[in-house]
């Protein structure tokens, strides 16, 4: 079943006269892990913003469910609220009762192993922990689609590995449709069912990653896939 569908999407930023996207079409299946990769400025984040409704396309058609949630590069946690408040506040804003918000907070903090950090403030957490709170917050409103905008690009490689494991576990447990934007090709191949390779505002190729899970970055098949992706980006 198709969850998200973009048809001939173009986006021009009028004030700066920049064409961010030209005729992008894309379909994402329900329960799929889809990743958009490409160099910075290729328009991948713009696609994510259009799916989320943060940005309107200049032309073309978008179909996406309303229950969309997002994980941001910076985490986007509010510094004046502790971990629990950051999550429950968002739940309440989406119409949950205090009790339900509390339940959701506990449930998803447990999922990212941060139950003991409930009353900590964002500044007291490491970058990886903040991002895990960001993921828990995004899931707590029970979205059908989870969008991730370069969620790990500000983190060190070891923390990134750790968060990949969390993300895959969450994807398996919740069966959400995930669309992620990344400039790290290895990350995209490691996590996704399919990747959309982007260049200069266009999707050059959509590649299915058939590697068996769990995937290992050192395996020959992995490296071969990486070469294929690079070829598309360079060629």
């Amino acid at each position: 079943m198709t969850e998200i569908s973009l048809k001939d999407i173009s986006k021009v930023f009028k004030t700066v006269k920049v064409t961010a996207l030209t005729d992008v079409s894309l379909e994402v299946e329900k329960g799929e892990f889809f990743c958009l990769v490409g160099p910075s400025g290729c328009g991948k984040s713009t696609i994510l913003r259009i799916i989320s409704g943060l940005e309107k396309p200049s032309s073309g058609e978008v179909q996406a469910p309303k229950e969309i949630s997002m994980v941001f590069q910076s985490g986007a946690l509010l510094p004046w609220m502790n971990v629990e408040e950051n999550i429950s506040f968002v739940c309440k804003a989406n119409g949950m009762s205090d009790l339900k918000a509390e339940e959701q907070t506990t449930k998803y903090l447990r999922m990212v192993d941060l139950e003991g950090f409930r009353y900590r403030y964002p500044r007291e957490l490491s970058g990886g922990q903040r991002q895990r709170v960001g993921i828990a917050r995004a899931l707590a409103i029970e979205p059908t689609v989870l969008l991730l905008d370069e969620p790990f690009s500000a983190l060190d490689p070891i923390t990134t590995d750790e968060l990949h494991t969390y993300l895959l576990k969450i994807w398996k447990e919740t069966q959400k449709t995930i669309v992620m934007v990344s400039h790290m090709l290895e990350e995209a191949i490691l996590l996704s069912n399919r990747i959309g390779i982007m260049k200069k505002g266009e999707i050059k190729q959509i590649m299915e990653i058939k590697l068996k899970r769990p995937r290992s970055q050192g395996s020959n098949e992995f490296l071969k896939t990486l070469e294929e992706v690079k070829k598309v980006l360079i060629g």
Partner: protein
Amino acid sequence: MAIRHYHHHYHFSYLTSKKRHFTSLLIVISIITLILLTILHFLSPLTSINIKQLSWETITFATLNTLYRLLVSYVLSVILSIPIALLITKSERSEKFLLPIADVLQSIPVLAFFPVVVVFFIKFNALETAVIFILFLAMLWNLIFSMIGGLKTIPRDITDAATIFNIKGLRKLRYITIPAIFPYIITGSLLAWAQGWSLLIVAEALHSYIPNGQAANDPLGLGSLLVNSFYNGQNAVFIASLIVMIVIIALINFFIWQKLLHLAERFKFD
């Protein structure tokens, strides 16, 4: 470990600033007193100071009156500056039109309207309101421009998150916008109060703007006390009110602004 270190660092700097604050207050007061006494000694020998003119009652009343005026004008300007700052930064278009207007308005010195304002309020026999109005105008701009600065530094991720998570209207204002600009409200308030104190001397000494005005018409306050005591050669009153003013400013700084500035650290984005 890192977390503990972070907190320790903040508390440490806070405590040292407390100590330093009091020490510098004492030093400043002694230096100013010394300088003033020397100057006044040359102007009129100290023996001529009439201690009887110095009444604690007057100074206390003057202080309370002044604080009341500053507080009322401050509260009014905070209440008004939030919607104005929000309106100006609402969209690119509103910023294009309103920001230059605000810029021109703020560059007109408040004291330029003062005579007109005074004449206007005197017509309604509302001197107190005239003082408050002038202080309010002086404070308003500092707050508005600080808040605009704050609103423009809210990270895009935060505003995007607010949109994605359906946080809007009053909820957004109360839980996201106001906390996000809280550090800027505090720095703006500091500037506003500084401006208020410095304008006080003119704002309370209204009689010079009134045709055939008498000093006796001035609303009692630290500002009018300073001006009129100096004018009448009541040196003791002059020095006493000046010292009271410095002490009050320092105490407000120490007990309110220092604490709020410390608190504001918690509201800053990394």
